[in-house]
């Protein structure tokens, strides 16, 4: 996909924050539009099919980044300072010009990433975004009432825990590093990666306990 350059590659800054569709993104939207108009497909049915397949392809790349962060303090430090380079060192690179920042969950702070746009979602790391993630109500409500939105995902956080909401942009995308679950001291990186769900890297969930992953 390297031939598809994003707006911020033009060097003139006119499109600094503008949305850009690559040729292929626009082409697929065009087909979707015409086929919907003719009554041959409906967006809900397409989402349902995407969801069927999407659940089968876990975000293994991001899970490996998190597992390495948990087990390798030097890597964790690198990820904190320069997530783009640390993630690229594992061979996961997105499109040209894509910068990553890792935000770390702690006992005091929970991080949540929002963005309505596919273009702001680091799929090289996280895999495909969930369908609800692109829905406008999710983004606006997550900004206003993050605690309420998280509760809807079944994630009740203690009142004392701060929630920070990060809004991805075309230039900077986020990855949440969830807290390492209890009882995982003896696990190797591969076993740890199996505990890292996509939702835990968006911040709408936590990493699984070893029991729950079984």
């Amino acid at each position, binding site marked *: 996909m390297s031939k598809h350059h994003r707006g911020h590659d033009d060097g003139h800054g006119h499109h600094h924050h503008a949305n850009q569709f690559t040729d292929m993104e626009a082409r697929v939207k065009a087909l979707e539009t015409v086929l919907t108009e003719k009554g041959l*497909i409906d967006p809900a049915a397409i989402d349902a099919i995407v969801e069927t397949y999407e659940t089968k392809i876990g975000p293994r790349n991001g899970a490996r980044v998190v597992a390495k962060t948990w087990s390798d303090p030097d890597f964790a430090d690198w990820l904190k300072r320069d997530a783009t380079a640390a993630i690229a060192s594992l061979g996961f690179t997105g499109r040209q010009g894509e910068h990553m920042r890792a935000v770390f969950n702690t006992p005091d702070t929970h991080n949540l990433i929002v963005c*309505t746009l596919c273009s702001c979602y680091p799929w090289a790391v996280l895999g495909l975004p969930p369908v609800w993630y692109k829905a406008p109500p999710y983004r606006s409500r997550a900004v206003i009432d993050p605690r309420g939105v998280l509760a809807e995902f079944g994630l009740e956080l203690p009142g004392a825990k701060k929630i920070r909401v990060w809004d991805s942009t*075309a230039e900077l995308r986020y990855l949440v590093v969830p807290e390492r679950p209890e009882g995982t001291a003896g696990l190797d990186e591969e076993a740890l990666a199996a505990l890292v769900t996509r939702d835990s890297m968006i911040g709408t969930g936590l990493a699984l306990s070893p029991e729950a992953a079984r």
Partner: protein
Amino acid sequence: MCNTTSPLVASAELPKSADGDPVFAEPWQAAAFAMTVRLHEQGVFCWSEWAEALSAELHKPERKADGSDYYDCWVAALSHLVANLSITSAPEIEALVRSWQRAAEATPHGKPIVLKNDPLRRE
């Protein structure tokens, strides 16, 4: 529940995981795959028509050696197929491609990109 795998999973050269499930590098690829599955389910075209359209694209000499343009070929095959079936036309698709690109550029960050944001589009 309806969890049957579409026959289109057997499409030539389809990138798959170790478990045999389709793998997508970007969301638009999953959308293209899903649209094709849906059209096939509805009987808009049959398996052999799809296989032939896809094969024609996959065997073009300008293919990339690493196969990273697989879904470009997939979308081209789908576009040709729906045009050949007179569901749409190449010019209609091209006009919509440009319209979506203008709509994306005209949409401020954080707002959903919708076609009516294209400043040149007349409803």
